[in-house]
């Protein structure tokens, strides 16, 4: 039971990170109707920028960890958001009215560019950092000595995710930008006729998605203590799986799917085999798409001629 509870905590933390990435997939899919294949690599870039900023701040002699983390968060969100904006501008916007496979292929190309760009720029070796946030709480200690640990970093990851989700939900449901986004999602032409700047709204979608991915990158860096140039690929597919599981296009669904994938992966590793945890996640993607193509919270897709 204690082991189960510990895995539950671990799974929820991992799921929060997947959920943050999945939101980027689901938003872009909702508005533009394409799978932003490069989104996993945007997450990776976010992790790298967080790492470099962190390193620079440490070397200036700053010691207050909360201040450092806040600056790192803001810098990596800002720069990664600019990456998201640039990628949309270069690789996707010219293809918006092209045939249907073109944006997908362009996105695959972009994913290769980002992966190899960071490999060339920062080297192929794994970049570790020493643990930044240490300590934690012991929730429960059983008779045979097994302890349920809740570390501070886990608390921070979950709280950050909840806060970001609250801000984000407010943004989508209450602000002008959110209304524009929902309008574009339903009908771009009509939205444009009613005075919505479609180009700007789509750009903003990519910017927000990239910023959330940057937060996920920072959380990943703090939680696992390392980044490498290849981490975006697998994380990207898993986050996409999460988006599909939750129902693509649905924002709460993305978070729910992220948590589900995180839990499934953790429990699979804990009770079956670590080697096959990715196989489990990918198999779930296939199974979900077969039996529940609209996901947990998605709407059935209406085919227009």
């Amino acid at each position: 039971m204690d082991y189960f509870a510990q895995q539950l905590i671990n799974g929820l933390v991992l799921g929060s990170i997947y959920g943050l990435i999945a939101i980027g997939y689901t938003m872009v899919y909702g508005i533009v109707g394409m799978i932003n294949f490069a989104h996993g690599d945007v997450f990776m870039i976010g992790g790298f920028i967080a790492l470099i900023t962190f390193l620079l701040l440490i070397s200036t002699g700053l010691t207050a960890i909360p201040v450092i983390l806040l600056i790192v968060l803001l810098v990596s969100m800002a720069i990664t958001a600019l990456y998201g904006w640039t990628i949309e501008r270069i690789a996707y916007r010219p293809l918006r009215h092209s045939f249907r496979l073109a944006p997908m292929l362009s996105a695959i190309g972009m994913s290769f560019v980002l992966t190899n760009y960071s490999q060339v720029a920062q080297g192929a070796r794994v970049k570790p950092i020493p643990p930044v946030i240490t300590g934690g709480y012991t929730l429960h200690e059983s008779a045979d000595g097994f302890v349920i640990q809740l570390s501070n970093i886990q608390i921070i990851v979950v709280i950050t995710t909840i806060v970001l989700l609250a801000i984000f939900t407010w943004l989508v449901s209450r602000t002008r930008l959110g209304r524009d986004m929902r309008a574009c999602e339903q009908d771009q032409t009509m939205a444009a006729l009613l005075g919505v700047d479609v180009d700007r709204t789509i750009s903003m979608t990519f910017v927000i998605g990239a910023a959330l991915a940057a937060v996920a990158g920072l959380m990943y860096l703090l939680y696992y203590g390392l980044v490498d140039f290849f981490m975006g690929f697998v994380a990207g597919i898993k986050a996409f799986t999460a988006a599909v599981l939750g129902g693509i296009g649905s924002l709460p669904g993305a978070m729910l799917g992220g948590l589900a994938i995180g839990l499934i992966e953790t429990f699979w590793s804990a009770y079956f085999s670590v080697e096959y945890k990715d196989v489990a996640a990918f198999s779930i993607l296939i199974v979900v798409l077969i039996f529940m193509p609209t996901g947990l919270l998605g709407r059935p897709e209406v085919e227009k001629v």
Partner: protein
Amino acid sequence: MKAPSTHPIKPATSIPALLKTAFVNALIALVLFSLMIGIRTEAGSSGQLTYWTRFGDLASIVAAVFGGSIVIELLRQWIGPTGAEKLVPPAVQSGISFIGRYLAPALLIFTLLVPVMFYNQRYILDLAILVLTYVMLGWGLNVVVGLAGLLDLGYVAFYAVGAYSYGLLATNFGWSFWICLPLAGILAAFWGVLLGFPVLRLRGDYLAIVTLAFGEIIRLVIINWQDLTGGPNGVSGIPRPSFFGIPLDNSDDGLAARLGIEYSPTHRIVFLFYLILALALLTNWATIRLRRLPIGRAWEALREDEVACRALGINTTTTKLTAFATGAMFGGFAGAFFATRQGFISPESFTFQESALVLAIVVLGGMGSQLGVALAALAMIGGFELFRSLESYRMLVFGMAMVLIMIWRPRGLIGHRAPTVYLTKAQAISSDLVKEGHG
């Protein structure tokens, strides 16, 4: 031809506006690259991260972006918004079509003569075999992507199934290549059906991701099922192919001894060359024949409009399934050939990059065009070989090329195959009338 962008066509920009655009672009580049290029991190010997600055590189990249955006903006004005296609004079166009007509036979004759011309240059023969392997893979995937319009990102899975089928059957049971080759194809097709049956109802993008996931699953299973596949160590000692039972070696009953000629290791290379050429041509021939059958017509119709297909009573699931299985089968053949050529296979040969490379060949060649795919494979693999010294930049350039080609010519660089049959004249059918308001 670029798709009509949403921007209005700008009038010829003035010099200050040009400089302003370039300046803004350079500024964006500065922010983007400031940390990633300007700072280089590396884990030191004690595991501690160190960094050093590279402001020189950063400055030169920002300067390149500044200059580059001026050049691109000027080029755009010079070519004009009408697009480049009209600039080609009719004489050149007829010349191109003349070349197009005779290029395929000329290329085929040249390919047949490659072992004769380059008999003593092992390197060129090896490269030619590699190119032909990708031509075959490209043609196989072309059935799925080019004809049926299904985006398959896990094609390498079938390649792996073929390679491992041959490798394991030959090393465990000692079966010969010529028995295993059809088996490898059948097994790959079987896997294609197994995967395709449930997932082919999905829309294009979902299908792409599912095939990608499938490719990864196959690779992970190969890595982890160590008892069967040898895990990351792979399968080694895979037998070389024989000339229909006659081994191509230095022994007394080898082909060279039987023909009474002096043995040379090049015989085997030449044999492999003609083997893959025959396999590739078989793929091509089958594709061309299939295209003329009702099933081929259905594939092309499916690519153009799935909803219309369904309305016309075509069973889209089985139609997709046949395309998927056919493509998978050719992938399996190519895999068996790969295993026998290398003599050693490991999961490293079957990564997603490989799938993307084959897909890029199909897309670059113009989806559905057989000649285009062959030329694209030649350009791509040859290009990779030319830039072998720039190993780390190779995939970077590859990715950029993919993006640029999609922007510049989304229907493929070399050729595009229009549907084999189509109505030349628009008929006044009921839906048109409805649109006009008569219905």
